[in-house]
C-alpha cells in the first residue's frame, strides 16, 4: 500500500471515508491526485461483519460521547446517541440500506417552491437538477443502482409483498422494489444479493455498494490513495494568510501527528464536520474555520422520520432479505393541500428481534409491549422518511464542559421538530397505517424516530457567503483550500435518502478540485 509522508504538503487530506470522503478520495486518486484519507474508525472487511445486531452495533457504531437537547423524542429515548452512524472505514455506507434516489426538481429550490414557512431557514441550492443530472448518472453507474443503467430491480421479499399489496389497494402507483445500490446480478466484481438481511450490519456478500468495498480499493489500486484508519482529526491548521496547511490528528495509541496538506476536505458527517471546524478556532478565526456567516453547525436536519409496524394473523418473516426492500413514492410530491410542504417516502424496513425490543417503543414494557414481541413473526414494517425544515436553532455546538478522550469539547446536538415536520409525520403515520389496514392488519404501531441516520445541513451550501458555509462546489466561502464533502453541505434535505446525492456531489467536487489544482488555483 502507498504511504505518504506527513511532511508532504502536496497531498489532499480528506477527513472521513464515508459516502462523501471515500468517494472523493477514490475519484481524486483515479485522476492522479495524491490523497490521504484519515478515518477515525478501524478497518473491518466484509468477512468481519456480523449478522448480529448488538454485536455489530458495538463493532462499527460511532459511540464517542455526545449530548442532546431540544424537544425531539430522540433526546429522551437515546440521550447519548443522537445519531446511528458508523465509525469505520467506509463510514455510514457500511450501515446504509442502499436506497439511491435522485432529488426531485423542485427540491433544489426549497425556498422558492415552499415560500415563506415561519421558523424555517429555507434557501434554494446554488445548483439544480440540470447541473446535477450528469453527476447523478455517473453516481448511479458507479454504485450499480437498480432500475438505472439497465440494471434489473431486486426481487421483493415478504415485507415488500405486504407493502405492495396494501399500496395497490389504496391506489398508489409508484410502488416498486426501489432504486438500490445492491447488486441484483453480479457487477463490478461484486456478487448478487443473497437476501441475507442484516444490511445495517455490513453486507457479508459484498452485494451492497459501500466506499469500503467499491471505491476505496479502486483508489488504492492507483497508488495515489492512502487510507489511514484509527486516525481521528482533532484540528485543522492554517497559516497567517488564512490558508489551511494541514491537520492535527491522534492515532490509535493516542499519539498526535500533523499531516501537511495542499487541500483539506472535511467529510466526517454532519455532527463531526461542524464540530471539527468549531474546534479549529484560532485567533484569526475565533468563531471557528469557515464560519464568517455564523452558519457552521446550524440548520441541522435529520429528516422527518417515523416507522409503522403492523401485526397480521399469519407469518411475514419480514427480516428475511434486504432490509429496505421496496418503496411507495406517491407521497414524495410537494402538495401543500395535505397540510405541509415537501413530501415523504415510504420504504420497507425490518429490525431483528433484539433491535425491535429496543426501538419499537423505547421505554415500553408490560403486557401490551410483550404482545408485539410475541407477534414478531407476523410483523411487517416500513420507515417514513421526508423533508424536514432547516432551522437555525437546530444545531451542533461544542459542549461547555464535557470533553472527549482527547480533551476536546464533545458535540451537543440540539433539535426541535418544526410544525411542518410534525404535520408531515402525522400524515405519514396515517398513510402507513392505511397501507397495512388495507391488507388486514390486526394492529398497527407508530414507532417514534430512531437515532438519526440522515444527518444533514450543518455546513450548508449557498450562493452568497453570508447565507452559508460552502459554495456550489463545496468549497468554503472563507478559505479557498478548505472543502466540505459530506451531507453537511445540504442546503435543504429533500425527501430522498441522501447518499446518492452525497456521492454525486463528491464526484463533481473531485472534478472541480483536480481542475483547480491543474490550473494552479489550489
Amino acid at each position, binding site marked *: 500500500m502507498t504511504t505518504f509522508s506527513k511532511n508532504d504538503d502536496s497531498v489532499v487530506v480528506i477527513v472521513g471515508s464515508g459516502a462523501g470522503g471515500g468517494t472523493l478520495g477514490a475519484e481524486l486518486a483515479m485522476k492522479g491526485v495524491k490523497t490521504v484519507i484519515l478515518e477515525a474508525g478501524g478497518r473491518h472487511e466484509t468477512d468481519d461483519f456480523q449478522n448480529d445486531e448488538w454485536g455489530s452495533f458495538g463493532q462499527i457504531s460511532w459511540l464517542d460521547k455526545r449530548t442532546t437537547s431540544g424537544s425531539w423524542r430522540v433526546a429522551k429515548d437515546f440521550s447519548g446517541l443522537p445519531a446511528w452512524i458508523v465509525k469505520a472505514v467506509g463510514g455510514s455506507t457500511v450501515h446504509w440500506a442502499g436506497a439511491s434516489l435522485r432529488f426531485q426538481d423542485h427540491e433544489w429550490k426549497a425556498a422558492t417552491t415552499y415560500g415563506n414557512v415561519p421558523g424555517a431557514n429555507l434557501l434554494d441550492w446554488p445548483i439544480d437538477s440540470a447541473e446535477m443530472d450528469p453527476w447523478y448518472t455517473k453516481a448511479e453507474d458507479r454504485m450499480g443502482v437498480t432500475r438505472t443503467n439497465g440494471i434489473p430491480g431486486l426481487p421483493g421479499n415478504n415485507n415488500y*409483498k*405486504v407493502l405492495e399489496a396494501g399500496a395497490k389497494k389504496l391506489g398508489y402507483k409508484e410502488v416498486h422494489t426501489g432504486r438500490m445500490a445492491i447488486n441484483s446480478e453480479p457487477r463490478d466484481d461484486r456478487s448478487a444479493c443473497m*437476501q441475507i438481511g*442484516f444490511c445495517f450490519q455490513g453486507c*457479508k456478500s459484498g452485494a451492497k455498494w459501500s466506499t469500503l468495498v467499491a471505491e476505496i480499493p479502486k483508489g488504492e489500486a492507483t497508488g495515489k490513495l492512502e487510507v489511514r484508519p484509527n486516525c481521528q482529526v482533532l484540528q485543522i491548521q492554517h497559516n497567517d494568510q488564512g490558508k489551511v496547511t494541514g491537520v492535527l490528528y491522534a492515532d490509535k495509541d493516542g499519539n498526535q501527528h500533523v499531516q501537511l496538506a495542499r487541500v483539506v476536505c472535511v467529510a466526517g458527517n454532519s455532527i463531526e464536520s461542524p464540530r471539527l471546524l468549531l474546534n479549529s478556532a484560532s485567533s484569526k478565526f475565533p468563531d471557528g474555520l469557515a464560519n464568517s456567516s455564523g452558519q457552521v453547525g446550524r440548520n441541522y436536519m435529520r429528516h422527518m422520520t417515523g416507522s409503522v409496524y403492523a401485526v397480521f394473523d399469519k407469518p411475514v418473516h419480514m427480516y428475511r432479505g434486504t432490509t429496505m426492500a421496496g418503496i411507495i413514492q406517491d407521497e414524495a410530491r410537494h402538495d401543500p393541500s395535505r397540510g405541509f410542504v415537501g413530501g415523504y417516502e415510504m420504504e420497507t424496513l425490518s429490525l431483528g428481534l433484539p433491535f425491535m425490543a*429496543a426501538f419499537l417503543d423505547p421505554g415500553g414494557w408490560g403486557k401490551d*409491549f410483550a404482545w408485539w414481541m*410475541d407477534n414478531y413473526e407476523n410483523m411487517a414494517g416500513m420507515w417514513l422518511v421526508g423533508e424536514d425544515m432547516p432551522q437555525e436553532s437546530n444545531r451542533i455546538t461544542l459542549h461547555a464542559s464535557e470533553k472527549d478522550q482527547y480533551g476536546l469539547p464533545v458535540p451537543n446536538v440540539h433539535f426541535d421538530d418544526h410544525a411542518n415536520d410534525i404535520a408531515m409525520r402525522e400524515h405519514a403515520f396515517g398513510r402507513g397505517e392505511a397501507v397495512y389496514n388495507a391488507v388486514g392488519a390486526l394492529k398497527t404501531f407508530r414507532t417514534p424516530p430512531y437515532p438519526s441516520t440522515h444527518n444533514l445541513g450543518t455546513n450548508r451550501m449557498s450562493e452568497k457567503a453570508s447565507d452559508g458555509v460552502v459554495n456550489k462546489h463545496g468549497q468554503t466561502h472563507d478559505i479557498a483550500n478548505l472543502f466540505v464533502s459530506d451531507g453537511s453541505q445540504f442546503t435543504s434535505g429533500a425527501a430522498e435518502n441522501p447518499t446518492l446525492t452525497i456521492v454525486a456531489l463528491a464526484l463533481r467536487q473531485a472534478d472541480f478540485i483536480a481542475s483547480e489544482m491543474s490550473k494552479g488555483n489550489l
Partner: protein
Amino acid sequence: MTITPNVSRRTALKGAVAGLIVAGTGAGGLVFGHGNAWAATAENLDADTFATLVQMSRDTYPHARLDDSFYAEAVSGLDKAAKDDAGLKTMLTEGAAKLDKEAMGLKAASYRSMSSEDDRVAILKSMEADPFFQKIRGNLVTGLYNNQKAWPLFGYEGESASKGGYIDRGFADIDWL
C-alpha cells in the same frame, strides 16, 4: 451462575407461567422454581433479592412462550455485574426490598408471593420512573430479547449469511396475501 432448566418439567409448567415462578430459596444462594423446573445460584445478591428480581422481570415482559429460566438468566447477568459494582448491588437490593414493602402494604405478602399479576404490575407501574425499575427493564431488553436461545421461540432465525441468506430459503414465500 448456574441455570439449570429441567426440560422434562417444562411442559408441565407451561400453564402456570403467569403465576408465581420462584418456589423457594436455599442455602448457598440457591434459587429454584416450582418442581425444580429450573435453578439458579445468586452469587452476589442474596437469594431472596434474586428471586424477587426474577418475578419482577417476568412481570415486566411477560411471555408465556418463555420458561422461567430465561428470566433467571437475565437476572444472573445483573447478579454478576453487581460483583464489582457496589452501587448496583445496593440499588438492586434496596429496589427489591421496596417491592416487598409496597406488597406488604397492599396484601400483607412479599412481592413474589402476591398471587395477582395485576397487583404486582400496579406496584411496578408506581415505580416506573425509578432508576431501579429502569435498570431491570433495560437489562431485559438485551438480557431477554438478545438471548439467542429465545430467538427461535419468537420465530426469529438470527444469523443467515453462513446458510446462504434467504435467496433459496423463503425470503418471498408469503402465501396469504
